[in-house]
């Protein structure tokens, strides 16, 4: 299947000389939720801004469903909806007026029934006559999503969609995003919340210092990079790891009550059987054991810490 968004060798150097993107290439499949993770200043917003036409690229090409964003900008942009990071709204417009404005701006004729559906889906219907200045931050975020959806885009960019949004609203927004994906909309979101990517994304891309460090299926990423740990709760605390177990690269907790064994789930042998045999041989008894997998957050932190 042809990708709906194709980015090739995209680079951006600002007038200040700051190189925000260094030959980035990326393909997004139709209908997926793609999470772009990266620390502050990594180039996430610059990348989105170039695709949406707000920032000019220094070099490289971007196509949206085969339409070049410069040459065929009308066709490309009419397929895209953008929810910006900042809560930028007009103060004195009503919710209904501002969402209708966005639909017209993107070249679509008036369609009150579509605007109504978008507002209802985002639980904004009872606020349709409210002035934007009277809305809370979370509600304004919903209005921005409604504006981005008003022209029925096929690709939706969400730049930090749940920044500053309370937990309940965040879960509500995740539901909305999933429902959108179910209607065939491709979703690309940038986020600081690893939990968000872990919860939502089909694929994850990590960007750091203007370069895509990694693009992977989320499940595959977790499997590949996910280290698993086996924690053994000892019956009698130890002062140090016994010499007989030194081959296993164990860590002892500060209180000496827990031995932690880290292993690779993808390896042919995890070494657990040998470890348990050696524990038995050295006479170390344990009360309980548990395993835990690295979260995406740990994976992410490890990736961006590594010099690229």
């Amino acid at each position, binding site marked *: 299947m042809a990708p709906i968004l194709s980015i090739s060798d995209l680079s951006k150097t*600002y*007038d200040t000389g700051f190189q925000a993107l260094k030959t980035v290439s990326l393909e997004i499949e139709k209908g997926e939720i793609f999470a772009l993770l990266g620390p502050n200043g990594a180039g996430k917003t610059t990348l989105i*801004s170039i695709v*949406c*036409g*707000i*920032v*000019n690229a220094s070099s490289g090409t971007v196509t949206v469903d085969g339409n070049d964003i410069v040459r065929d*900008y*009308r*066709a*490309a*942009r*009419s397929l*895209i909806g*953008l929810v*910006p990071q*900042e809560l*930028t*709204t*007009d*103060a*004195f*417009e009503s919710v209904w*007026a501002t969402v*209708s*404005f*966005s*639909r*017209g*701006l*993107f*070249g*679509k*004729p008036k369609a009150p029934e579509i605007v109504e559906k978008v507002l209802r889906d985002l639980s904004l219907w009872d606020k349709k006559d409210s002035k934007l200045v009277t809305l809370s931050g979370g509600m304004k975020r919903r209005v921005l999503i409604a*504006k981005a959806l008003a022209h029925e885009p096929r690709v939706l960019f969400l730049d930090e969609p749940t920044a500053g949004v309370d937990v309940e609203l965040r879960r509500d927004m995740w539901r909305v995003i999933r429902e959108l994906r179910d209607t065939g909309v491709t979703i690309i979101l940038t986020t600081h919340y690893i939990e968000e990517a872990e919860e939502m994304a089909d694929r994850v891309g990590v960007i750091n210092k203007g370069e895509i460090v990694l693009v992977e299926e989320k499940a595959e990423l977790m499997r590949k990079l996910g280290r698993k740990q086996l924690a053994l709760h000892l019956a009698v605390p130890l002062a140090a790891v016994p010499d007989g177990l030194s081959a296993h690269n164990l860590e002892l907790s500060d209180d000496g009550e827990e031995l932690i064994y880290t292993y690779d789930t993808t390896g042919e042998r995890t070494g657990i059987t040998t470890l348990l045999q050696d524990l038995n041989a050295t006479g170390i008894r344990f009360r309980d054991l548990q395993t835990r997998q690295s979260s995406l957050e740990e994976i992410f932190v490890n990736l961006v810490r590594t010099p690229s």
Partner: protein
Amino acid sequence: MNIHAIKAIYRFEMARTGRTLFQSIVSPVISTSLYFVVFGAAIGSRIAEVDGVSYGAFIVPGLIMLSLLTQSVSNASFGIYFPRFTGTIYEVLSAPVSYLEIVIAYVGAAATKAIIVGLIILATAALFVPLEIQHPGWMLLFLLLTAVTFSLLGFIIGIWADNFEKLQFVPMLIITPLAFLGGSFYSISMLPPFWQKVTLFNPVVYLISGFRWSFYGQADVGVGVSLAMTLLFLGLCLAVIWWIFRTGYRLKS
């Protein structure tokens, strides 16, 4: 052509006028009425006729032009500056609209508002002084061309300005003095010969002269020259806007 986008921006801008009705419409009418009270009735009655026209009637085209220029510039500059200031410009930049469509929408709305104000002032003036319009077609043409040209200038200022002070700077310190010194309240033939020549470097002279000719059939400079100068200034503004969009100046990084 993305007609829906032009309509959306145009309506949005006109709705803003509706919300600020007092500032947009009522305030220029009040200030113009004050001009008539002061210059038309109080002082004007002591001033002799100018080229066979009573002074009160003589200043009408100049007063309309004065308002038209300042309204066009301030409407258009504010219209494009404010979304830049609040950040909502992202939506216009990311929409499938051409630069031409953006200019038509913003400048069209600003010019419409200025023309409405101009016509209201004309109607207000008719309450104070007897008016005649010898060439109504030309009057409307000058009204339209001037409103569009100075709305284009306002659009440029709104993109150039990066703070509110700069936004006010050009209308206050350039447009208003040029309009006052461009023959709003006098015929340039009243000036000493040297200043008559200097005045010809003021582009507003040609606008006011042409506009006054459409009312009373008399002008400081030929109506053809007035029209040519207006069109020249219009072309100049269009060229600057073309450059702005081509380079993304102050709009795109």
